[in-house]
C-alpha cells in the first residue's frame, strides 16, 4: 500500500505560566500506520493530543495537514481534517441507542421545519460501520446496556462516521479484559489495513509492542526518540522513557525506623476485587508508593483511611486493629489522609483557614458542645506559624490561597491531631517549587518524630528523591519493593509496567 504523510507536527511548544509542557516536539503520522506514543505520567502526551484535537493552542510550532500549514487547530478544523478521539473516559449518551450516539448532531431528518429524526435512515447509516468493526451488538442497542469494551467500539464507529483518517486512542485498554484487549488490537489491525492511522497511547508496553509500527517517546515535554518496527522492545522503550538526571531531594532520616507501624494485610479494594495488597510501613520512615495512573494506589490509600469500603483484609497500627470502611476509626487511630483532590476532598474551600484546620477535631475545641473560637484560633495560628501558611490571618477563606498554602491547611488539620500514620496522595501536585521543598522537609520532620508516612506520587523525581523505601503497584497488586540502594527510574518503571522482572535484575541497579 502506498503510504503518504497526512499529518506533521513540527517544533510544537506549549508553555503555561511557569511550566513548559512541550518543547520542540516533532511528530508525523503516515496513512495506514499505528503510531505508539509513550512516556511517563506528565511527559506531555495528553497536551500533545489536546493540541491535535484543537482543544489547546500551541505556543509555537506548526501543524501541517495535507500540505496545508496551521499555527493551531480548532475542534472543528481537527474533526474536518479527519482526526478523531477515542477517550479514556468515554463520552457517550447512555440514554440513547448506538445509532443515536454515532450520528449525534448529524441525524438524518424529515418533516421539514419540525426536524423529526428519521430513525430508519439513522440505523441504516450506522449499521455498516458496526459491521465493518465486527461487533456483537446492533445499531438499536442502548448504550447503557453495553460493556466498556462495546462502548469503545461505538466510539470507534463514531470516529469512522466522520471519515476519520487518524484515530487517537488514549489508554484504550485500561478497563478492558484480556480478551477484549485482543479484540481491540485486532480491530486496530483492520483499521490499518483499510488505510486509517491510529495513534495509540498506552502505558502497557506489551500492547504497544503488539500493535505499533513505530513508537515515539516523550519525556519532560520533549521528543526523546523514536523506534521503528524492528526496534520496538520493552527494554528499548523503557531506556528512552527514563534517563534524565534527577535532582537529589533526599533528606536522610535522623534515626533507624522503629519496628512498629502500619501493617496492611491482604487488603482488597473495590476497584481491583481480585488483588490482595499487603505491606508494612514502620514509624520513622517515608515509603513511596509508585505506579502508573490507574494502578490502584489511590484506592488502597482510601481503603486504609476508610473513606472507601474494603472487600477484605486487615489494617493494624502498632498491632491494634483498625475497623475497615470507617473513617472515624482510622482517625481515632491517628491514620490520616491528605487526599489527591485537595479542592474536592481535602478542604471546604469556602470556609476560613481556622475552621478547616479544626474540622476533623472540632469536639476538642468545644465546651458543652459549643465551639470555643478562642481555642480554635490558637491552634490554627500555631499550625499556621509552624507550616508557614502565607495568609493575612486564620479567618482568610481557603479558596483565596495558592495551592501550596491550601495543602498546608490540609496538613495543619492532621498535624494538630498527633498523627501516627499520614498518607500523602500526590502531595505536591500543582504546587510551586518553593512550597514543594517545604512540604518534603515537613514530611521528614514528621517521620523523624515517629510518624509512619506513605507517599503516593506520579512524579518520578519526587518518589525517588523523597522516599526511604518504595512499593510499586501494577494493575491493583504490589509488583515489587525497592530499597534505597535499588532506586532507579528503570527499576520503578519496569515494575510499574509489567512486574515480570527478576529479583537479581533489581539488585543490579
Amino acid at each position, binding site marked *: 500500500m502506498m503510504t503518504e504523510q497526512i499529518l506533521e507536527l513540527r517544533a510544537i511548544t506549549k508553555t503555561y505560566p511557569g511550566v513548559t509542557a512541550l518543547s520542540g516536539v516533532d511528530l508525523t503520522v503516515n496513512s495506514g500506520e499505528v503510531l505508539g506514543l509513550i512516556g511517563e505520567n506528565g511527559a506531555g502526551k495528553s497536551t500533545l493530543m489536546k493540541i491535535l484535537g484543537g482543544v489547546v493552542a500551541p505556543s509555537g510550532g506548526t501543524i501541517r495537514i495535507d500540505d496545508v500549514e496551521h499555527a493551531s487547530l480548532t475542534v472543528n478544523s481537527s474533526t474536518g481534517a479527519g482526526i478523531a478521539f477515542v477517550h479514556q473516559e468515554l463520552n457517550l449518551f447512555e440514554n440513547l441507542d448506538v445509532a443515536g450516539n454515532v450520528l449525534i448532531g448529524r441525524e438524518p431528518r424529515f418533516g421539514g421545519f419540525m426536524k423529526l429524526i428519521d430513525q430508519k435512515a439513522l440505523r441504516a447509516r450506522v449499521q455498516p460501520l458496526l459491521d465493518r468493526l465486527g461487533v456483537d451488538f446492533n445499531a438499536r442497542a442502548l448504550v447503557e446496556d453495553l460493556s466498556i469494551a462495546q462502548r469503545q467500539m461505538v466510539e470507534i464507529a463514531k470516529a469512522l462516521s466522520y471519515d476519520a483518517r487518524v484515530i487517537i486512542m488514549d489508554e484504550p485498554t485500561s478497563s478492558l479484559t484480556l480478551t477484549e484487549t485482543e479484540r481491540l488490537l485486532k480491530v486496530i489491525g483492520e483499521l490499518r489495513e483499510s488505510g486509517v492511522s491510529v495513534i495509540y497511547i498506552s502505558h502497557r508496553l506489551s500492547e504497544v509492542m503488539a500493535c505499533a509500527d513505530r513508537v515515539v517517546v516523550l519525556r519532560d515535554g520533549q521528543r526523546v526518540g523514536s523506534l521503528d518496527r524492528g526496534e520496538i522492545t520493552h527494554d528499548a522503550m523503557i531506556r528512552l522513557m527514563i534517563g534524565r538526571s534527577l535532582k537529589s531531594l533526599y533528606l536522610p532520616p535522623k534515626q533507624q525506623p522503629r519496628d512498629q507501624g502500619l501493617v496492611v494485610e491482604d487488603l482488597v479494594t473495590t476497584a481491583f476485587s481480585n488483588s490482595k495488597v499487603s505491606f508494612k510501613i514502620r514509624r520513622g520512615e517515608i515509603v513511596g508508593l509508585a505506579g502508573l495512573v490507574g494502578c490502584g494506589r489511590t484506592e488502597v490509600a482510601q481503603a486504609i483511611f476508610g473513606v472507601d469500603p474494603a472487600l477484605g483484609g486487615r489494617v493494624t497500627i502498632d498491632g491494634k486493629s483498625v475497623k475497615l470502611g470507617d473513617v472515624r476509626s482510622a482517625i481515632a487511630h491517628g491514620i490520616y489522609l491528605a487526599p489527591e483532590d485537595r479542592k474536592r476532598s481535602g478542604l471546604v474551600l469556602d470556609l476560613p483557614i481556622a475552621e478547616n484546620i479544626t474540622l476533623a477535631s472540632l469536639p476538642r475545641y468545644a465546651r458543652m458542645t459549643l465551639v470555643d473560637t478562642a481555642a480554635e484560633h490558637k491552634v490554627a495560628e500555631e499550625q499556621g506559624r509552624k507550616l508557614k501558611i502565607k495568609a493575612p490571618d486564620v479567618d482568610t477563606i481557603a479558596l483565596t490561597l495558592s495551592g501550596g498554602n491550601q495543602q498546608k491547611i490540609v496538613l495543619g488539620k492532621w498535624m494538630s491531631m498527633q498523627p501516627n500514620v499520614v498518607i500523602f496522595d500526590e502531595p505536591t501536585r500543582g504546587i*510551586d517549587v518553593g512550597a514543594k521543598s517545604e512540604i518534603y522537609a515537613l514530611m521528614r520532620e514528621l517521620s523523624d518524630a515517629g510518624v509512619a508516612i506513605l507517599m503516593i506520587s506520579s512524579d518520578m523525581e519526587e518518589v525517588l528523591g523523597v522516599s526511604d523505601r518504595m512499593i510499586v503497584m501494577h494493575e491493583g497488586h504490589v509488583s515489587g519493593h525497592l530499597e534505597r540502594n535499588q532506586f532507579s527510574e528503570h527499576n520503578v518503571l519496569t515494575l510499574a509496567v509489567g512486574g515480570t522482572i527478576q529479583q537479581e535484575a533489581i539488585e543490579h541497579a
Partner: protein
Amino acid sequence: MLRKELGLFLLILVIGAITAVLNPQFISQINLTNLANQIGLFGLFAIGVGVVIITGGIELSVGSMLALLGIIFLDLLVNHELAWPIALLITVGGGVILGTIHGLLVTQLRLQPFVVTLCGLLIYRGLARYYTADSTAGFGYGSGYETLEWLVSGRVGVVPNAFIFFVAVCLIMSVVLHKSVFGRYLFAVGKNEEAARFSGIPTKLVITAAYSIAGLLTGLSAIFFVFYTQSVSPSAHGNFYELYAVAAAVLGGCSLRGGEGSILGIFLGTVLLQVLQNLVNMLGIPSSLNYTVMGAVIMLGVIADRELQRRRMHKIMVDSAAARATGKAPAAA
C-alpha cells in the same frame, strides 16, 4: 457576613415605611399584633426547612405534615380526650419521626431530597383526608386544654405568644447553628460533603438530624396552627406552606446549593413575606395578586443578591491574585 441580613432589614423598614405612609393603619397596634402572630406561625417551620436547605437538601412536605399532625392532635385531644401534654408529645414526636424517615431515605437510600419530600407531601395530605373522611375536624365542646390554648394563642401584653415562642426558637437555633459543633458540621456538609466525610464528620447523621429538626419544628407548628384556625379541613389546611418556608429561607440568604444561610436571615425573610402579605391588604391591592407580589419581590431580591455576590467574588479573586503575586516573591527570591 451580616451584610445580607442588614440589607434585608433595611428593605423591610423601607417597605414598612412606605406602607405606613400610604395607610397609617399598617402601624396600628392591632395590625402589628396580628402581623407578629402571623410571623410566629409561619416562621417556626421555616426555620426547620432552612436548616434542611443549609445541608443542600429541601423539605417540601411541611404543609401536608401540618394537616396530618393537626388532625391527629385534634383527634387525640377531642375524641380520645388525652391529657394535652401527652397529645402534644405524640404530635411533636410524630413530626420528628416523619422528618427522621425523610433523612434516612436521603442518606441511606441516597434518594433525592426533592423526590422524598414531594412524596411526603402527597402521602401525608392523602392520609390527613382519609383520617377524617375528608370532613373538617374542630374542637367542638372539648375542654381541659385551656392552659395550652393560652400558651399558643394567647399574648403577653400586646405581643402574641406565637411570636415570643418563635423568637425563643430563633435564639436557640442561632446558638445551635452558629456556635455549636453540630452547626459547624451542618455548614461544612452543605458546602462540601466529600471534604466533610474525609475529615471524619458523620455526614449521614448530620443530614438526618437536619430533617429531624425540621420535623420537630413542623410538629410544634402544627399545634400553633390548630389553635389559630380552630379547625382543620384536611384538604386545605397548610396548603402551599412549604413554599412560604422555602421562600423565607431563600430571601434570608439560604442557597439551595447548601452551605449558606443564617437564622437571623430566615427570621427576616419570614418577616418580609408576612409584611408583603399584609401590605396587599393594607394598600387595597386585589388579594388575588397576593402571590404575584410575593413572587416578584423574591425574584428581585434574588437578582440583587446574585449581583452583590458576583461583585464580592470578583473582589476576592482579584485580591487573592494580588496577594499571591506578592506572597510568591519571597519564595522565588
